[in-house]
């Protein structure tokens, strides 16, 4: 047969056409490890959550691999320490996608980093699941690849407002935030929510977290007739000063608000342990125990499973449980679809309904990527911390 330029061009076009129509995928894609990128602020000032999440991640990967992997594929966790720095998170994300060729990414664990990397992941259409609360991080139009495993700020806000109005029975509330960007915006949103629901916000303030004396603000709140004080701050120093001042004033108004009010750091800053009474911080039903000290059955089984393997006395159970669930959600997508392609994982997550995780039962749809059940955000008694779990605040059954 004569070989000329025309036959070479035709032959080449045929090969390319066949490739475009699709050959069967090579077997290597089905047997290669399932690579999960894990953007973790393992060191630095905000490392406590990531250290907790990581314990759940490691256990989940070990259990999956011990059971033969996901459809025979080993789960490989590719961890990058972002140190809580958005620039490092951006670099790590790009490296994970282009060099390490991960199939999905879990994290980052704080909203500042997540705001920086979410658009990058969206451009690459990489399946991403994260626990960051800032509302704008979930937008199914802009970021169809991003899913939230934890509640959003709105869900936190709803839970606090509902507890104040229904359980405490407060009609007049004081809303206090710190002077950080988070404190200002959270207090503003919270006040707007209370007003919308017909409650009276009798005092609203943003306090510098280093202000040594909280008497002026609490006196003003008391004079205004506040029946509950809602606190939006991550500063444990500010929280403790508020509790101490309330006790010195001989006032028994309840504090309701941010989870930092239940931080173990507060215990050492209190003038008396009793100053921590009547303080209710945001918690989760799955990680809260009842009056008899019992956790929900699924959480109880999980804690028993972790015994001897994972320390819980210096972390929070929800961090460990969420890390565990995130890896399992990625594995489940691959197991159910038999594929680790980006599109298939996202497509599967969009159909997840009441996935029975340890931290919560997640439901995602193409229009809603806030999968945490709103009813599972509850209030905990802030001074009841025990092995990363808290007692349900009064009023819950």
């Amino acid at each position, binding site marked *: 047969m004569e070989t000329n330029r025309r036959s070479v061009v035709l032959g080449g076009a045929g090969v390319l056409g066949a490739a475009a129509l699709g050959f069967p995928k090579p077997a290597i894609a089905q047997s290669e490890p399932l690579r999960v990128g894990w953007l973790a602020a393992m060191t630095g000032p905000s490392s406590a959550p990531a250290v907790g999440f990581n314990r759940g991640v490691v256990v989940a990967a070990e259990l999956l691999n011990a059971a033969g992997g996901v459809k025979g594929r080993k789960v490989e966790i590719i961890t990058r320490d972002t140190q809580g720095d958005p620039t490092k998170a951006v670099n790590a994300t790009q490296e994970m996608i282009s060099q390490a060729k991960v199939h999905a990414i879990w994290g980052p664990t704080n909203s500042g980093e997540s705001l920086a990397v979410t658009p990058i992941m969206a451009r690459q259409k990489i399946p991403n699941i994260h626990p960051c609360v800032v509302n704008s991080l979930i937008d199914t139009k802009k970021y169809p690849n991003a899913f939230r495993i934890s509640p959003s700020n709105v869900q936190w806000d709803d839970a606090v407002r509902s507890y104040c109005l229904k359980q405490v029975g407060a009609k007049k509330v004081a809303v206090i935030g710190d002077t950080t960007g988070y404190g200002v915006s959270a207090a503003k949103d919270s006040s707007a929510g209370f007003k919308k629901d017909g409650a009276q916000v009798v005092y609203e303030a943003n306090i510098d977290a280093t202000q040594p*004396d909280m008497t*002026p*603000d609490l006196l003003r709140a008391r004079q205004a007739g506040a029946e509950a004080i809602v606190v939006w701050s991550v500063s444990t120093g500010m929280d403790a000063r508020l509790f101490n001042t309330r006790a010195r004033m001989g006032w028994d108004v309840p504090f309701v608000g941010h989870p930092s009010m239940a931080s173990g750091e507060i215990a050492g800053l209190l003038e008396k342990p009793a100053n921590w009474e009547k303080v209710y911080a945001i918690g989760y039903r799955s990680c809260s125990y009842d009056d008899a000290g019992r956790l929900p059955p699924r959480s109880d089984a999980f804690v028993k499973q972790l015994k001897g393997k994972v320390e819980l006395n210096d972390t929070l159970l929800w961090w460990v449980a969420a890390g565990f669930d995130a890896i399992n959600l990625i594995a489940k997508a691959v197991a159910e679809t038999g594929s680790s392609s980006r599109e298939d994982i996202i497509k599967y997550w969009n159909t997840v309904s009441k996935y029975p995780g340890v931290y919560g039962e997640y439901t995602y749809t193409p229009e809603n990527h806030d999968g945490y059940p709103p009813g599972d955000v509850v209030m905990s008694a802030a001074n009841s911390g025990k092995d990363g779990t808290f007692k349900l605040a009064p009023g819950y059954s």
Partner: protein
Amino acid sequence: MLYSILTSGLAVGAVYALIGVTYNTMFSTSRVMSFTAGQLGMLGGVLGSLFTLRLGIPWPLGLLLTLACCALIGIVTEFVAVRPVLKSLDQHLYVLSTLAVALMIQQFTAIMWSTEPQPFPRLLGGIGQDLLDEKFWLPVVTCAAVIVGLELLYRRTILGHAFLAVAEDNFAARALGLPERQLRVMAYALAGAIGALAGYSGGQLLLAFFANGPHLNFYGFIPVALGGLGNNRGAVVGGLALGLFQQTANFVVGGIFASVAVFTIFIVVLLIAPQGLLGSATARRV
């Protein structure tokens, strides 16, 4: 309300005043505004808590160790951030060098200590309540003791006279044979100890918290500006006035607006009296 303004305002004001005195002590022998003053105050609280609460050392010994450590940091600051830039004082490079040291101190503390506020020990075991609570009177008494001590040092001792001579005119002092460098190092050690006393005496109010440094840097600078640079009595008056005004503003306007009120008054005062309320315009022969 008046009671709270007086107790809390005077206590915090005394801490600000002591930080102002720390600024002045470093300035007098070097003509440098060292921005490590606030960090020395922060370290006073952190080291006090470290020695007494974490390591279980009795507080008098813990206090001495805290003073010694901060004096050492003062000396290191002089060597690292002040001495190399003295030749080009007019370029104000000390702003950068002392801020760099301040930042290093803060970051190191955040990594080695904690990023969360930690408790500071009760020193006298709960003697007194309310106005008599030690956390309110301790900074005021410490401030008074430091001022009396400095007055005695400057007026009654040869060393104090030498400090004053260097502060007045360091070229003339050197010409008279005074060891200007050694005196400067000693002044920085003294400033370190005074800064530590500020943080230690106010530890129960401010807690042992790494982020107190910038806060004290800002609010400790105001008494210096109000009272006149280098004027310790002015710093004390300015500091106490600042504390009282700040606490009053917290009651009257509250929250973020209290800080705005403080800085508004500060700017207004400087517009009316640029040399500070107790400072005097210096004449220079040309």
